[in-house]
């Protein structure tokens, strides 16, 4: 789960990482009130779950409360890489002497958290990694040993943070960021830029914070931060119904059992000239309830012109799945062509049940490839 900048900063503050004082606003009036309360120059920042906000005009300075309101009006409703801005974060503007970058990522390959620090902050880190890899100091932390201050000292020496007072602040901050990373079950904690003010104060000017979905049961307060209005409407509906669904932009709706098999099905659809409309994993089951919920989500996407079921019966038997599909189709009206491919345990019985049902828009195929070809052909004819 990705957090908004302001949510990440709230967590930073909780772990003792210095951030600027600010408040959230969802209208120009609210932005004006916040600016007035904060006093002086403020910065108005679009809250969206994507990068490139500055370039898109989503971050603006304001000298007065009136200007803050005008800036908020310009930013609210902006489309930034497909994300519509619904909220802005208004905080005290900071004077910037230097811009650094600090992050902790979950390094899957090494199976250890990875700390990274560079004094070339404020730009995309991939750019720095490519342009001057030596400027990017990196150190892994053994999760059983935990973070040790020598690791932050090493980062400072390697990255070239030379000022002793700055070093002291950065070393403390790295430790607190590691605490936040472990304490919040994060997959990523990134501060870009980590600034040094002309007075020599080090603080986080931005935050990128991703929390492990599987650990949210330990963090009910973070789980509540999820923005239920964000994302595609189909994905919101899927979340409500507990359906594992990812929206794509094609026309073939896809349901299958098992993440790998569904991914493979999307690929096969593309190979035969179609475009998948979604990823949807029914999981181990295939009961009518689960199928109805999934179909409701898939058919809520107006782009869908055909539906493909790709089911491999294992422990779940093919006839049970067929019964689930038929029951689901009984309970809802779908006029789109539906192609079902059923294989594995008791597949023959399942296929016979589907054929016997003889719905005019229900087609039964024996292989994954033939089913993919069929549904693409049927959808194309519409």
């Amino acid at each position, binding site marked *: 789960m990705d957090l908004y900048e302001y949510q990440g900063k709230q967590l930073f503050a909780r772990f003792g990482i210095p951030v600027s004082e600010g408040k959230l606003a969802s209208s120009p009036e609210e932005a004006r009130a916040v600016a007035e309360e904060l006093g002086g120059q403020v910065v108005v920042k679009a809250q969206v779950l994507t990068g490139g906000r500055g370039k898109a005009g989503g971050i603006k300075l304001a000298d007065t409360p009136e200007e803050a309101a005008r800036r908020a009006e310009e930013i609210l409703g902006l489309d930034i890489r497909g994300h519509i801005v619904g909220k802005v974060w208004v905080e005290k503007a900071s004077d910037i002497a230097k811009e650094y970058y600090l992050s902790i990522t*979950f390094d*899957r*390959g090494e*199976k*250890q*958290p990875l700390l990274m620090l560079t004094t070339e902050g404020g730009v995309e880190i*991939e750019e720095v990694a490519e342009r001057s890899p030596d400027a990017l100091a990196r150190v892994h932390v*053994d*999760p*059983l040993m935990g973070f040790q201050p020598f690791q932050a000292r090493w980062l400072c020496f390697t990255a070239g943070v030379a000022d002793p007072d700055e070093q002291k602040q950065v070393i403390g901050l790295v430790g607190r960021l590691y605490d936040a990373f*472990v304490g919040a*079950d994060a*997959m990523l904690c990134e501060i870009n830029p980590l600034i040094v003010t002309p007075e020599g104060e080090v603080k986080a000017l931005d935050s990128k914070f991703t929390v*492990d*979905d*599987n*650990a949210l*049961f*330990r963090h009910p307060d973070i789980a509540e931060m999820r923005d239920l209005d964000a994302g595609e409407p189909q994905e919101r509906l899927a979340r409500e119904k507990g359906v*594992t669904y*990812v929206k*794509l932009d094609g026309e073939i709706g896809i349901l*299958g*059992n*098992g*993440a*790998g*098999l*569904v*991914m*493979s099905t*999307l*690929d*096969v*659809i*593309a*190979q035969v000239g179609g475009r*998948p409309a979604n*990823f949807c*994993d029914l999981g181990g089951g295939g009961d009518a309830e689960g199928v109805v919920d999934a179909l409701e989500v898939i058919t809520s996407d107006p782009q869908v012109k055909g539906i493909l079921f790709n089911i*491999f019966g*294992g*422990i779940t038997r093919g006839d049970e799945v067929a019964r689930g599909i038929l029951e689901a189709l009984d309970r809802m009206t779908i006029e789109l062509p539906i192609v079902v491919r059923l*294989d*594995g*345990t008791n597949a023959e019985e399942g296929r016979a049940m589907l054929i016997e049902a003889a719905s005019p828009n229900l087609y039964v195929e024996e*292989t*994954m*490839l033939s089913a993919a070809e069929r549904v693409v052909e049927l959808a194309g004819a519409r």
Partner: protein
Amino acid sequence: MAIIVDSETRLVVQGITGREGSFHAARNKAYGTNVVAGVTPGKGGGDVDGIPVFDSVREAVAETSPNTAMVFVPARFAADAIYEAVDAGIETVICITEGIPAHDMLRVYNYVYPRGVTLVGPNCPGVLSPGKANVGIIPAEIFREGNVGLVSRSGTLTYQIGHELAQLGVGQSTIVGIGGDPVVGSSFLDVLARFERDPETEYVVMVGEIGGAEEEKAASFIEAEMTKPVIAYIAGFTAPPGKTMGHAGAIISGTAGTAQAKKEALEAHGVRVGTNPTEVARLVAEVVGART
């Protein structure tokens, strides 16, 4: 021979009194796996399908000498269960549980790995050596005995490929589901190395998917260290970046972990990559046919 599980396996099932645990323990036993004990804290003294239940793994070890543990414990308690098995001296732990926090697995991995314990999973279907032992939830009836080793990050996709192979008359030595999480115990590389050493395995099929860089590491390993032919498949060419595709580990981060990059890495190291499950099975049958 086969790898990881075989007729020497003596299995203890942790979480045996749960719905999934009891169902699959009974299935594994019915297949012929030597299931010697179950563990559920507080339920010691009872039995599930004739399998004695103990309160702790230590007791189970003292009474029944298992060498392998299967974990069906709910996600929030699963790390604890793995530590308990390792602490009791179990050499092989197969964890089926889905949804374990990634930080828990990070610590488990770093604890388990230096102790020489074989951990398979989590979030995996388990390990099946046809004709010898089945530990996990793989439907054994799809597979037949043979000389092809199969290793995969996905469950049903593995069944699909096993099924297609069976239709072409090709059987398996062992099927290993390594799991779909960001941090799993045995990697492709670990399992490939075992298949290379296993006299019963003559060919290997490796089924990968988007996310991480384990397939890329496996590619260099195959070229440098393996004499047995490997055929690969990668799922997720149409997956968008930044979205988790069902498996917690199946996510393209920025530009890293794409199916295309994995395919290119494998091909650059001389590994043939099938474009869909049917083609993978055909390629395997072709290689097997050419060698016999």
